[in-house]
């Protein structure tokens, strides 16, 4: 499409402000870790499984260390010490700890350099598994090609992983490029990751490592048949954000929902916790070559899409800069936005185009994830289907990277099998029909569309400068995003945040930073 004339100096200003904001946040994050980051490290060391009470061993370990006030040293450090002391594997340490067979005090005297050597060894091995998955993905992409954009992204959400598979495979045959397995409503607030294959969820299916494996296999198989690489998506989000990132990395997920602010705003997770967790999870994601999808679309489900358009852009800038701090390349930044303008608005389509095209130009290399109408979908499935059609048209016109397909039954239930087929059909019809339309048209200079885009840009810039001034934490306290106010010390999960002490050891953190070329600041 003909480019809109956007005020480049505003773009620069906005990006600068966001960088400053990210730096402030980063400074806050650096000295801190969380229980889930520690559990993540243990998982990557190979600790898996749950005890008799269904509590994951990584939780058992981290909880014990926390109780004993040892967590500030880093869980890896203690597990390594126990390994050496007892001559056990990491898993054996976990199982022993579970029946109180590890005397942590007895391990304390072990010299740090010995533990750390072991720690690095285990970390190298853990990260290797991730690299292997990445290589496998690359091989398959080479074999089948990367596919035409926008990728058609659909969700499955039956609550039962086996049912999900049937739905996912059918969707692939119908033309889906990305399958996202939606998570059950209850999971994001759990401070542990459930275990094994699951068949009972509400509005989604538990994210477990086993479920990831099952779905990954199913998609690889059907992908072989249809000769396309099918991308799998899940949520690195909620109280176990980095653990799930690690699971996703190990099971070759390709896309993960991961947002710096989503949990804070929409799950009332404590802001310190989320911001620390997202930084670590994004390093894993970066290392694994997974694409993130941010969640700015959600803002427009509570706030008004016309009025709050600039908050979406502001948040995208922040997500971008924070992601850079975790080493994520721009081509893996699926920044989110959404088609959520009230369908009764005259010239609503013009505003939608303005927003989508503006974002396209401001983040030219990011894949961009475009979300369909949800809030103004109703029980009128026929109308809903054409709302989705306009959405698909705008996606095509503005060259979005990922089109999350809308379902005509959005106001009712998670998708039925046929809903998805109709929705894929909708997207293919519209996109094929308008394939080169964007190359054909240009927008009036100084017209409604261009003006609207610049207005939004201006407001976003102002907002970012305000946030820079007051700091991100205070901004969230003031309810700048999605009309949601969240206190600095409120919400869930704050008890899982701790200050690292001077002996803190996390070889994954260090290796990842090294590998991702991030300044390693370690106090030795």
């Amino acid at each position: 499409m003909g480019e809109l004339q956007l005020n480049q100096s505003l773009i620069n200003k906005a990006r600068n402000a966001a960088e400053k904001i990210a730096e402030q946040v980063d400074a806050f994050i650096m000295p801190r870790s969380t229980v889930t980051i520690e559990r993540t490290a243990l998982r990557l060391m190979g600790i898996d499984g749950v005890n008799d009470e269904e509590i994951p061993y990584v939780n058992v370990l981290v909880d014990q260390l926390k109780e004993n006030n040892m967590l500030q040293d880093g869980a890896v450090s203690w597990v390594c010490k126990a390994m050496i002391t007892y001559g056990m594997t990491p898993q054996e340490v976990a199982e022993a700890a579970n029946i109180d067979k590890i005397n942590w005090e007895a391990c304390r005297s072990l010299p740090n350099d010995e533990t750390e050597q072991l720690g690095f060894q285990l970390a190298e091995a853990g990260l290797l598994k991730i690299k292997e998955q990445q290589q496998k993905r690359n091989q398959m992409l080479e074999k089948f090609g990367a596919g035409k954009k926008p990728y058609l992204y659909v969700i499955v959400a039956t609550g039962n992983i086996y049912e999900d598979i049937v739905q996912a495979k059918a969707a692939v045959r119908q033309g889906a490029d990305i399958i996202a397995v939606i998570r059950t409503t209850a999971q994001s607030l759990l401070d542990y990751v459930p275990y094994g294959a699951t068949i009972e969820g509400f509005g989604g299916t538990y994210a477990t490592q086993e479920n990831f494996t099952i779905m990954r296999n199913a998609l690889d198989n059907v992908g072989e048949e249809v000769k396309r690489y099918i991308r799998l998506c899940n949520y690195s989000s909620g109280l176990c954000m980095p653990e799930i990132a690690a699971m996703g990395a190990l099971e070759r997920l390709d896309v993960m929902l991961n947002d710096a602010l989503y949990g804070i705003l929409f799950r009332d997770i404590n802001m310190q916790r989320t911001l620390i967790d997202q930084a670590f999870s994004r390093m894993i994601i970066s290392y694994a070559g997974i694409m993130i999808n941010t969640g700015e679309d959600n803002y427009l489900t509570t706030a008004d899409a016309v009025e709050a358009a600039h908050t979406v852009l502001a948040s995208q800038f922040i997500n971008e800069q924070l992601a850079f701090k975790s080493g994520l390349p721009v081509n893996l930044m699926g920044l989110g936005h959404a088609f959520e303008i009230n369908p009764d608005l005259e010239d609503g389509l013009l505003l939608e185009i303005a927003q989508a095209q503006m974002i396209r130009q401001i983040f030219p290399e990011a894949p961009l994830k475009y979300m369909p109408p949800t809030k103004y979908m109703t029980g009128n499935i026929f109308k809903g289907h054409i709302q989705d059609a306009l959405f698909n048209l705008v996606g095509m016109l503005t060259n979005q990277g990922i089109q999350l397909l809308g379902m005509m039954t959005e106001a009712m239930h998670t998708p039925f099998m046929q809903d998805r087929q109709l929705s894929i059909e909708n997207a293919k019809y519209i996109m094929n029909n308008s394939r080169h339309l964007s190359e054909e048209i240009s927008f009036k200079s100084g017209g409604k569309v261009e003006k609207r885009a610049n207005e939004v840009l201006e407001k976003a810039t102002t907002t970012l400068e305000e946030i820079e001034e007051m700091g991100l934490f205070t901004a969230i306290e003031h309810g700048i995003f999605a009309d949601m106010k969240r206190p600095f010390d409120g919400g869930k999960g704050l008890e899982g945040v701790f200050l690292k002490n001077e002996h803190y050891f996390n070889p994954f953190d260090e290796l990842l930073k090294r590998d991702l070329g991030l300044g390693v600041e370690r106090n030795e």
Partner: protein
Amino acid sequence: MSSIDFTHIKPYGDTFGDGAVQLSFTLPVPYGEEAKEAARLLAIKMGLDEVQIYHMKDLGEHYTFFILYGKVAHSIDYTKITVAKIETTRLDYYQINEKIKKEIKRKIVVVGACTGTDAHTVGIDAIMNMKGYNGEYGLERYPMIDAYNLGAQVKNEDLLAKAIEVEADAILVSQVVTQKGIHLTNLTELVELIEGSGLRKNMILICGGPRINHELSLELGYDAGFGSGTVARDVASYIVEEMINRNRN
């Protein structure tokens, strides 16, 4: 999901056996809570559980439109289903001409028309005209077939007269307009006419159209019926094999 019980097949939404169906209709009652209840009761009579009326709209003039979902209690024994199908092997253009040459040893003659007041020629043209349909030649193009396409709005009498005149082996009738069952009237009248003429057994009688299927055609007294998406080779394959079979018996 693992092993499906085909004796009790139910609709599927997202949980095996959930019976999920979508339904829409208009009731001639004014918009309101009573209308909604009427819609719900109707759905229940149709065998739905957990009826959810997701949308209702006042159409004016005391009519109300509904969109609803529910879970149907009925199930179907899929293992017992048998469908009348045309069993002939589907040959291609070359094979068909070859087969006529070899086994019938003369050109076969086919007359076709869209009958009654029905003016939709596209369907019968798709089967008969040179250029055919969907990349498949029409019957006129077959060297071993003499095809006469009388076009649309042809009277049954005229069609039969032409068939007699050219000693047709097969008659092809197209019917597209189906409102108030007008196609059934037209098609039945032709069968009666031909039977009255005493020529029924000499002719292969075939009908087609978007609302025609083989089963219905048999009921109406035709030898075969073809629906949407038919191409010339489907019909030609059938005619040739049927002619050979009849000759044998």
